């Protein structure tokens, strides 16, 4: 255990990996292209119909395919080689966007084409996310994930802005044609830049898409750790409420579109700057331990808007909240470690879908609430609810995975324990007392055994870093299973198969 730790990798080292460079560049092209198509088509629809409502509907529809694609198509990148899926998605999108650029396509067909184009984004994104751990390992992966996260945000903004600019300067059709070309380029990068790898889970038995989707859900929701991590990821819906009500919020403060832009930029910028620093200066174990507190702080900071701060103070609050949001990268990596390779793409698909849908729903809910409440109040409420949810998740995480998560706990609880790494805590008298009482509920002839057994487990938990709350929870769970224990211990001994 005292082996000299290898030097910590730097961002430079991530880009030294040829395969990652290819995936990263193709990601920029794909994400920006996706956004560009959406903006260009929204403008095209508005131009043809002069109806802001229709344009808004088209824009909102950009989110719907995430649900369908996220549910049904992300599984593809587990059952087929991921490179093949990514190239196929890019090819499909190139063709669809090129079709959109054709002259004389009816409006309805355009919307349908956009819908179909967006539907290929979730499988591409999931395949990309799932293939990254194949390319980068350990700490390098975390750096790579941070780079991709930042790139994703930046490429989305660039695509939206670039889309607007391109439509204005070169016209919608040429813009769409260019977009089609970016998808072709992205596909070529993947096809030639990524090594061929076999499918993670080749089809052995025939199963319906519905059954496969259900299995994916059972994987992520059936596991306590994954469920908690998913919750941490989805919290983003609460602390990005300011972005959803940026326009009315700044309008109340007397600001115009520039102020709105500042709100949007400040949060994106804060996340972009702080995430790499978070990785650089906080060790992997501490990152996991900090996840709960940071998530709670990210939401709780927004409650400060109840005091009706001015624009400058608001920007500080939003930025601080976004800085705390850097815990997301820890949740992402912990999630990856726990998902088996055979279902990695699908698991990412479900996680991404939740983020996109949650954020969309959050924006709509916040927008609706802003009709009757002050936007500042809406932000504060969103932050408050989020903080409570984050607190619950934080407690679950700490209690279920003492010290710094399950893997750390496994190492600590296992036989080879380095005493210096142990963050030994004492057994809490309250938990001990509850256990003693629990044991009294068992049949008399079994009490002695289980008193020792439970106590030794409690001590192990304490030495693995479980605090008083965690220990009490353990004792409480034993209390809860006491009736079942009583019946089991009292039932006659019967050898053989299960009844």
């Amino acid at each position, binding site marked *: 255990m005292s082996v000299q730790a290898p030097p910590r990798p730097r961002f430079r080292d991530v880009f030294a990996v040829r395969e990652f460079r290819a995936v990263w560049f193709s990601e920029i092209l794909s994400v920006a292209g996706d956004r560009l198509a959406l903006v260009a088509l929204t403008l095209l629809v508005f131009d043809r119909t002069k109806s802001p409502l229709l344009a808004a509907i088209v824009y909102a529809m950009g989110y719907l395919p995430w649900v369908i694609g996220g549910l049904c198509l992300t599984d593809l990148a587990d059952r087929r080689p991921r490179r093949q899926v990514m190239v196929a998605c890019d090819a499909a999108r190139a063709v669809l966007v090129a079709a959109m650029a054709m002259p004389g396509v009816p409006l309805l067909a355009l919307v349908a084409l956009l819908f179909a184009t967006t539907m290929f984004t979730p499988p591409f994104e999931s395949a990309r996310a799932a293939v990254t751990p194949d390319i980068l390992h350990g700490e390098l992966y975390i750096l790579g994930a941070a780079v991709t996260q930042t790139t994703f945000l930046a490429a989305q903004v660039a695509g939206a802005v670039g889309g607007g600019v391109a439509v204005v300067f070169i016209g919608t059709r040429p813009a769409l044609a260019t977009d089609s070309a970016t998808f072709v380029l992205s596909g070529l990068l993947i096809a030639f830049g990524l090594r061929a790898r076999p499918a993670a889970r080749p089809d052995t038995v025939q199963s319906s898409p519905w059954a496969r989707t259900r299995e994916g859900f059972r994987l992520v929701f059936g596991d306590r750790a994954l469920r908690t991590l998913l919750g941490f990821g989805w919290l983003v819906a609460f602390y990005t409420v300011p972005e959803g009500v940026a326009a009315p919020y700044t309008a109340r403060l007397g600001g115009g579109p520039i102020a709105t832009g500042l709100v949007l930029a400040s949060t994106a910028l804060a996340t972009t700057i702080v995430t790499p620093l978070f990785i650089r200066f906080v060790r992997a*174990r501490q990152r996991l331990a900090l996840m709960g507190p940071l998530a709670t702080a990210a939401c709780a900071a927004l409650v400060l808007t109840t005091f009706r701060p001015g624009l400058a103070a608001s920007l500080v609050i939003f930025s601080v909240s976004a800085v705390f949001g850097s815990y997301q990268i820890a949740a992402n990596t912990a999630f990856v*470690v726990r998902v088996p390779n055979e279902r990695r793409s699908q698991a990412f698909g479900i996680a991404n879908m939740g983020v996109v849908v949650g954020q969309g729903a959050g924006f709509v809910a916040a927008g609706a609430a802003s009709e009757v409440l002050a936007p500042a109040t809406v932000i504060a409420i969103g932050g408050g609810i989020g903080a409570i949810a984050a607190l619950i998740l934080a407690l679950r995480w700490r209690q279920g995975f003492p010290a710094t998560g399950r893997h*750390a706990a496994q190492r600590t609880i296992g036989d080879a324990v380095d005493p210096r790494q142990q963050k030994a805590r004492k057994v809490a008298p309250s938990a001990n007392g509850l256990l003693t009482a629990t044991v009294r509920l068992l049949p008399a002839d079994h009490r002695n055994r289980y008193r*020792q057994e439970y*106590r*030794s*487990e409690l001590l192990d938990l304490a030495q693995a870093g479980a605090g008083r709350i965690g220990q009490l929870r353990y004792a409480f769970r034993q209390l809860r*299973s006491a009736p079942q224990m009583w019946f*089991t211990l009292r039932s006659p001994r019967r050898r053989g198969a*299960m009844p």
Partner: protein
Amino acid sequence: MTLPTQLVLRALLAEPTQEMYGLQICQAAGLPSGTIHPILARFEKLGWLESRWEDANPHEEGRPRRRYYRLTEDGAEQARIAMGRATTSISTIGLRARPAGGLA
């Protein structure tokens, strides 16, 4: 067979000859600590599991002894059969015990 029961069985079957104590089984099964004793007690009654105290002398060690569990030969066989028959078999979900090891 309930899902926790299947998870416990699978955790035990992963290393059928290895002895584990309660907390280790919880970890391996991915279940919260303090929830599996009824399951273990039931399997002990069925004769699938056997258990023994840790060898250490509690007075010398200054802490209570651990109770180690291990599948019996017959138990391992029965457990495999039961897992194969389970209607909502977790093997189809794709959950699997993950090897120890951190992120980095």
